[in-house]
């Protein structure tokens, strides 16, 4: 579909430094919260835990051009954990792919351009529609293979949830990425430790997580998913495509940034009142 892209803000100088990334991550949470307020509910926990990750991708690591969302040599990003779409939307808005005004449309009506899960049909800059979980890494394998076949020097990033890695399809993709030596594929797992039914350690634990990925042939980096310098370093892979793929296991706090949401299972997805929204905004440090 032909949509005039918004274009990057004129004062945006990339890559952002750590202070700039921190401010942008805060903006990411504020944008997501605003979308939840518009809709009346949302996946707070899942969006807030990956705000730094998405910010570092769009403002430090990825080579993309908001004026050319279909630029063939662009780096790709797949949000495997599709229910964290507002975090992605904020990244796309602040990077200049889509206009800020779309925030007020979030889930507002049938045919709105921003819905609960990302959609390639409606949103320039989205590389894959998602929603079902467990699909993202397989699609990423395909994109990385395509890049190699076409001789393109680009990286495919896939952000998954830790609960999502319970799904067998993730391990099918993991095995194939190693077999195909997709050095241009980077998986990121947002390890916030909580899934729908509770603590992942009780639902279906993944530890020892790094050992599993290594045994499947991946390079593993484990870090604090809210540590911006560590994320910046980890998400800049060598741009060569023949080598083991890389996975970044990011330990995060679900609901990070808002005290009454941090590490609380119930904020996987819930409704929000005006009072709660005011508290969210106040804690994130900006006026609504």
């Amino acid at each position, binding site marked *: 579909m032909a949509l005039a892209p918004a274009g990057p803000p004129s004062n945006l100088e990339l890559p952002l430094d750590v202070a700039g990334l921190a401010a942008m991550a805060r903006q990411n949470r504020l944008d997501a919260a605003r979308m939840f307020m518009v809709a009346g509910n949302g996946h707070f926990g899942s969006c807030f835990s990956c705000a730094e990750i998405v910010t570092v991708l769009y403002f430090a690591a990825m080579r993309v051009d908001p004026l050319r969302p279909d630029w063939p040599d662009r780096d790709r990003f797949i949000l495997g954990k599709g229910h964290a779409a507002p975090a992605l939307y904020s990244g796309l808005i602040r990077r200049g792919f889509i206009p800020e005004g779309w925030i007020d449309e979030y889930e507002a009506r049938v045919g709105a351009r921003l819905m609960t899960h990302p959609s390639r049909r409606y949103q320039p800059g989205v590389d894959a529609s998602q929603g079902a979980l467990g699909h993202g890494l397989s699609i990423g394998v395909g994109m990385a293979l395509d890049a190699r076949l076409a001789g393109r020097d680009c990286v495919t990033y896939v952000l998954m949830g830790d609960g999502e890695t319970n799904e*067998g399809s993730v391990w*099918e993709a993991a095995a194939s990425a*190693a*077999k195909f030596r997709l050095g241009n594929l980077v998986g990121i797992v947002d390890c916030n430790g909580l899934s729908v039914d509770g603590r992942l350690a009780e639902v279906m634990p993944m530890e*020892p997580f790094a050992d599993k990925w290594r*045994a499947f*042939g991946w390079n593993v980096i484990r870090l604090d998913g809210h540590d911006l310098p560590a994320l910046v370093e980890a998400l800049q892979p060598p741009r060569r495509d023949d080598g083991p793929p890389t996975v970044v296991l990011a330990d995060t706090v679900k609901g990070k940034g808002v005290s009454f949401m941090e590490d609380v299972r119930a904020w996987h997805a819930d409704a929000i009142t005006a009072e709660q929204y005011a508290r969210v905004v106040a804690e994130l440090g900006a006026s609504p």
Partner: protein
Amino acid sequence: MQTSPPSSNLDVTLAHLRRRARNIREYAIRMGAVQGQGYVGQALGIADVLAVAYCYALRLRPDDPGWAERDRFLLSAGHYAIALYAALIEAGVLPKDEFETYGADDSRLPMSGMAHYTPGMEITGGSLGHGLPIAIGRCLGLRRKQSPAFVYNLMSDGELDEGATWEAALSASHFGLGKLIVIVDVNNQQADGPSTKMLGFEPLVEKWQAFGWLAWRCDGNDLGALVQAFDAARMSAEPKPRVIICDTRMGCGVPFLEAREKTHFIRVEPEEWALALEALGEASA
């Protein structure tokens, strides 16, 4: 037939198992000859594992294949049915002359394992990758009944490509299923070519260990090594599931078939069945 404890007279045990394995190979070849085709390469390769399972390790009552306290043996690799039938015949679960009905209409021995057709066939195979998830449920159920029975699951290396295998592997470890023993037949052959060219599943021991399993690896055509591995897998007191990774050679026991170019569905000419039986006779001296 009672469980055999670790043998104090290993030589006697091994001689006994050698004969059993040879007989299993013979039945498999005879069944292949009946139909003129069959997954005979795999059957010859897995015969030693099945001999150790059915004639040494498993607690069974041949006259009562549904005995509640039996060890369960799930054939996840349903196309290995020809081998399992041979083992069931050798173990006395099926009558000796039943092999003649292999693959025929209304037979109890279809080419792909079907649970309700054959006494002693625990699951319906064919689709591959189903055995381990089902085995998880079997173990959970047996635990509820406080049964001491083991659950064995025989899988082919190709089934390691299936995501459901790893979902089940995670779960087996999480539930501490110490009565679960998986046998992986690593013969390095899948429908489209060598397994290492498919998804490439090595390093296997590390994978299973990372998923929380106790893992052993051995030569799957060395009866002594198999006995040791089965003993270790059964005896360990750790609350962890167990896997024995068996490197086998397709066609093992019949030199001209073992030497044949490796294919998933081995080609045997009509006149070669008799030659295969002869070769077997010689090899067991």
